[in-house]
């Protein structure tokens, strides 16, 4: 009975209810879009910089992060690796050695980032092989290298040519070497693509005169969300006077800051939007209550408890808001899903500025229940807020006065 009365009540003024529900739908749709595009972009940004380069958790020598030079690298022992692998959530440990190198080919030279990797594992984790555009992928025992496509363009070098690398090795020894290009890779981040050189780890260690040395141990974990836990656990297991585990959040604070700032802006916008909607809903409920005060009084006169009447009003609010959020989500799911699999490709200025941040100029959406859950929670609050007025009005209703109307 309560449900039926409430349902019919909301359709008394069809136009008004329709407008109210539409405004809720609009807010939900806008909010879901904003949030899923934002979060999608953040995930992309994190994947681009963290997934591809740093990894979610790293172990470095304690001085390395402050001063990223080879001399602050670390000696890796099997013990250390085993220790790290024993932490829950850790899938694997890969080793990496990074150094600056000057690359020269014919008349061109360019500062590059040289990274020594385990080629097989690097492909396993970041699908490096799939980024190959020319030539072949390197193997562990190769004495050849992979270079970024933009770097190759700049140096006008192609597969089979030999690139000369110069730089500083471990403890001031000079590092010089000439290595044939085995393959060209296209990195999603243009900044990286312009400077990257991949080399098998052993070859890099040899070139840098740092056998068994690495700059980072990359801890591969099951799930990015576990980063903090894994990091803490690692730090409790290793000798932190020598080495230290760090999460991607510590390693890329600018990225976090940028994401947080952007997210806060998004929330502010959505907050304002919902605020407007909340007052709209409140206005509707205000009218719905005021114009029915006499009816409320009649119902109480003939024997309906105020609490039951209040419940009917709350159900009315739930109906309006539930339809709003239900339809809103139903409308957005297919669209969000579409853009998740078919990200919007950005062009022009926007694309340029994104690329400057090392992000692919693509806007995928994030398909995550949490985004919908956020909206549901907000709408719940709006429902509660809107229900305050009629509940209050019913509890404080002056029977005789309302009946005389």
């Amino acid at each position: 009975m309560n449900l039926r009365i409430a349902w019919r009540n909301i359709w008394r003024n069809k136009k008004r209810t329709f407008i109210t529900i539409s405004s809720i739908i609009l807010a939900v749709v806008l909010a879901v879009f904003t949030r899923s595009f934002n979060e999608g972009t953040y995930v992309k940004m994190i994947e681009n910089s963290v997934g591809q380069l740093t990894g979610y958790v790293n172990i470095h020598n304690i001085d390395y992060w402050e001063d990223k030079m080879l001399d602050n690298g670390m000696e890796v022992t099997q013990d250390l690796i085993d220790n790290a692998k024993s932490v829950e959530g850790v899938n694997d440990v890969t080793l990496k050695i990074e150094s600056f190198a000057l690359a020269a080919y014919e008349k061109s030279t360019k500062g590059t980032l040289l990274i020594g990797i385990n080629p097989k594992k690097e492909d396993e984790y970041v699908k490096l092989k799939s980024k190959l555009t020319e030539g072949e992928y390197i193997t562990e025992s190769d004495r050849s290298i992979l270079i970024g496509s933009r770097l190759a363009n700049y140096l006008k070098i192609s597969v089979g040519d030999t690139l000369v690398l110069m730089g500083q090795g471990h403890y001031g020894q000079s590092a010089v070497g000439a290595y044939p290009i085995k393959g060209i890779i296209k990195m999603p981040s243009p900044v990286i693509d312009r400077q990257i050189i991949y080399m098998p780890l052993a070859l890099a260690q040899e070139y840098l005169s740092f056998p068994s040395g690495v700059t980072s141990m990359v801890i591969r974990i099951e799930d990015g969300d576990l980063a903090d836990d894994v990091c803490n656990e690692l730090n409790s297991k290793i000798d932190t006077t020598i080495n230290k585990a760090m999460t991607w959040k510590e390693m890329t604070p600018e990225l976090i800051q940028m994401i947080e700032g952007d997210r806060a802006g998004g929330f502010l916008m959505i907050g304002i939007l919902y605020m407007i909607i909340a007052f709209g809903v409140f206005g509707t409920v205000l009218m719905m209550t005021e114009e029915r005060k006499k009816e409320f009084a009649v119902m109480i006169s003939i024997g309906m408890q105020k609490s039951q009447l209040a419940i009917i009003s709350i159900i009315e609010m739930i109906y309006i808001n539930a339809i709003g959020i239900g339809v809103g989500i139903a409308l957005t799911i297919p669209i969000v899903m579409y853009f998740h699999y078919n990200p919007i490709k950005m062009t022009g200025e926007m694309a340029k500025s994104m690329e400057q941040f090392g992000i692919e100029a693509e806007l995928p959406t994030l398909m995550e229940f949490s985004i919908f859950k956020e909206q549901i929670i907000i709408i719940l609050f709006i429902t509660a807020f809107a229900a305050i007025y009629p509940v209050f009005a019913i509890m404080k209703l002056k029977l005789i006065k309302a009946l005389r109307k």
Partner: protein
Amino acid sequence: MKKVIEIKDLFKTYVDADIIVKAVNGVSLSFEEGEFAAIVGPSGSGKTTLLNMIGGLDKYTEGSIIIDGIDISQLSSKQMIDFRLNNIGFVFQAYNLIPVLTAKENAEFIMQLQHKSKKERQERIMELFEAVGISEKANVRPGKLSGGQQQRVAVARALASKPKFILADEPTANLDSKSTADLLDIMRKLNEEENITFIFSTHDQRVIDRAKRVITLEDGKIISDEVK
């Protein structure tokens, strides 16, 4: 006959911007089961105020109202609502049916509040709608009924809960003479055949003529109380 309502030395004073209005000014009165009583008097004489207090809608300043042995001033406002539900039927001047419910649902609603079974509800509503002659409009919403039809539904609603008596404040004031006559026929019939107690206020001489007892108020006091 059994006494259903006993009113003693009842006063109701309104204080409105320093002006004291004694809307009901020392009324003592009792009603028995099966009465068909009209409360009459000029405008402002206190008819509505008296009926509202008997119905527990308004509090009185002094005196007492005992309904079926219960002093209603002792009831909490929640208890009062339940008391009204189970003991008093209301018919309003402006019908005041719930617009989103059909005629039948309006009457059934009150029995649902009493947690009556579906079967019991159906039977009683059928019977009542038959009695007030509105059966064919059972599934129509109030907005599509004439005033007379709405008031007949209101009478059915008031009776649905099997109250001890019906209070009706000017039930015919909004009706034309034909509808007024019809409604009075129905009320009289229910009173005579089912022994339903009706207490109503009115200005209408034709209604007064058909009452079995006429109580006249003036300035909140009873000036005459005749049983015909």
